[in-house]
């Protein structure tokens, strides 16, 4: 059993989950993920790792509440325990000294991009970070990311903070201050990562995305996390989750990602209260 150190709603519908898992904290690297099972009847859900504390043996993730299983996670309180917290899984993000790195985070990916920003900075790169959200109230960890980066850009859909618009603004924003990235890394929802890849492709900016397919075992056994990269089938849990965003078959991936949407929300319609139908 793994003890919950902290679980709080950090912005509407996004939760910060800190779990005591010393063995995971000891080995985790930027870009890895963990598999979590909220209770004995729970699904195995992959969560990207957003931070860790080796000394205290804790690991932090940011997750969005979307269906029944994440709703269970969202109900956890400090001191509760969960039966499964296994990792770190997947290959870590390759951190090299490449020059200038542009990191793009949205949704839960604002959290998981943080250790990547930190690692690229420590490796001697210039790191710029783009935070993207629907509205200002969905932004978090701005201070943390500003401190870790050489510069940050904020884009909100409604213009309540930073530039009004979407991912398509990135080239204009970074070129304005004279930056041409040698590498772009995107973490976030599938649509955001797809858009980043589409925007950077014509510019020839190498783009790595941290994919988030449905998984079960997460250790290279079941094959549900497969996706097409450059026309070849790859398995996100052992070949990834980082892939070249320009090579991914995004339509196929989006369809696979949605394949259990009806079942995902189904448990939310059920209630343990007998007077409900």
């Amino acid at each position, binding site marked *: 059993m793994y003890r919950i150190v902290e679980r709080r709603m950090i912005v509407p519908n996004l939760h910060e989950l800190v779990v005591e898992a010393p063995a995971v904290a000891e080995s985790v690297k930027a870009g890895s993920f963990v598999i979590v099972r909220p209770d004995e009847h729970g699904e195995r859900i992959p969560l990207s790792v957003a931070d860790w504390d080796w000394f205290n043996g804790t690991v932090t993730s940011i997750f969005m509440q979307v269906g029944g*299983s994440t709703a269970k996670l969202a109900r956890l309180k400090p001191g509760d325990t969960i039966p499964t917290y296994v990792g770190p899984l997947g290959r870590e993000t390759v951190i090299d000294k490449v020059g200038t790195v542009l990191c793009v985070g949205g949704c839960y990916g604002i959290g998981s991009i943080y250790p990547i920003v930190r690692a690229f900075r420590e490796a001697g790169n210039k790191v710029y970070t783009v935070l993207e959200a629907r509205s200002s109230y969905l932004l978090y960890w701005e201070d943390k990311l500003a401190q870790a980066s050489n510069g940050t850009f904020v884009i909100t859909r409604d213009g309540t903070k930073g530039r009004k618009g979407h991912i398509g603004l990135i080239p204009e924003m970074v070129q304005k201050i004279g930056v041409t990235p040698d590498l772009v890394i995107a973490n976030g929802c599938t649509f955001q990562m797809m858009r980043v890849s589409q925007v950077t492709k014509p510019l020839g900016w190498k783009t790595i995305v941290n994919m988030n397919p449905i998984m079960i*075992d997460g250790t*290279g056994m079941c094959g549900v996390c497969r996706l097409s990269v450059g026309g070849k*089938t790859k398995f996100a849990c*052992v070949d990834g989750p980082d892939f070249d965003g320009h090579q991914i*078959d995004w339509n196929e991936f989006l369809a696979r990602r949605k394949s*259990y949407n009806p079942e995902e929300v189904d448990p939310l319609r059920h209630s343990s209260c007998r007077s409900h139908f």
Partner: protein
Amino acid sequence: MAEEKKKVDYNRRPMPKQNPWERIRNFDEVALGYPDAIAVEEASRCLSCKKPQCNAGCPVGIDIPGFIKCIVESDFGSGVRKIKETNALPAICGRVCPQEEQCEKVCVLGKKGKPVAIGRLERFLADWEAREGKIEIPDMAPKTGKKVAIVGAGPAGITVANDLIILGHDVTIFEALHECGGVLIYGIPEFRLPKAIVNREVDYVRSLGVKIYTDYVVGKTRKVDKLLEEFDAIFVGAGAGLPWFMEIPGENLNGVYSANEYLTRVNLMKGFRFPEYDTPVKRPSRVAVIGGGNVAMDSARTAVRLGADEVHLVYRRSRQELPARLEEVENAEEESVIFDLLTLPIRLIGNEQGWVTHMECLKMELGEPDDSGRRRPVPIEGSNFLVDFDAVVCAIGNSPNPLIPMTTPGLEISKKGGIVTDPVTGRTARPNIWAGGDVVRGAATVISAMGDGRIAAKSMHQYLTNSGL
């Protein structure tokens, strides 16, 4: 010891089974086991050969005539002890071993009639022991002070753990999933091997003093070399890896599953009880299962139980070449699985939402024998046809798990991705690492994994006791 001359009894006693029309609506075990009296009758068919062949047919070398004699004498307790001398998992082997290819294949009675039902008798003893609730702990050797780590709590790992703890070593198993048993838990369905039995066998090994950590992925949570700082020897039984697909167009459509995924959703994650359990499994009406092995049979029979209207098993050779156990083929046939034999899928077609809707196939005919000795299936030109399916399960095998090979330097890895071991000792290219089961062989059987475990345990014991303190 003058014995009356016994008439040879060729009449193999059938085992009671759930009726097909009942069992397709539940996930309970299909085969119900021998009652005591029938077990004694069946055991009494054994000729007690002076030079028994059956022992040699067993990958773990069970004293088969020995335990059968105990059953004849109704001394079931001694029979259990006899089996457990060499086999830690009799309830499992009695159910899932391909006895017809091993011990029963060489039984002398088989030459003229039906061989003794060795597997059913093994199962009988194991179930008798569980029913009696008197699980005996074997004699344990004094502690050696040597520490052994085992990667994976599947059939190979459990066998090694059992053997080495009895020999006095300190044994710790690291299991990646949240439950122990490996393929016995995630792969083989409840109706063929009830999970309570797997848990019972795991609890037995635990009761011997084996420590087990679940949710621990060796290679990721901690690398093998890091474990070697703490342990004197390691056995890698990490099991199956990535599923194979046919490499035909459309395999990444929704509704196309690997057998590993399909069975894991149902068995390990209990998807058949969704939404009581959170992991969903689709309940399509027309299911194609591609492949002809035991895993294909398991997948097809699972699809039947999940309420499919029609389940087709699509296999490119003929019925005779089906690699599955005959017993499982017959069970599937009884459960109304439709066998599309000599049929090769060449393309999967989907709708706009990305869900599979059709499968295009070719008819095959059998040609000259190939490397495997079976007649090679040859496509009949122009025989293409389309069939409607809303789910396709691909059960054509898998590679060995890649995590240990990827993260452990110095191991020799085969072209197919398996860890290379010395067949006599199970030792890898590194002196203190052994391996066995699917991580070496790819998709193989439970008993071959256990056989590998037995061999490795022996070699590990020699290493641990000779290498000095």
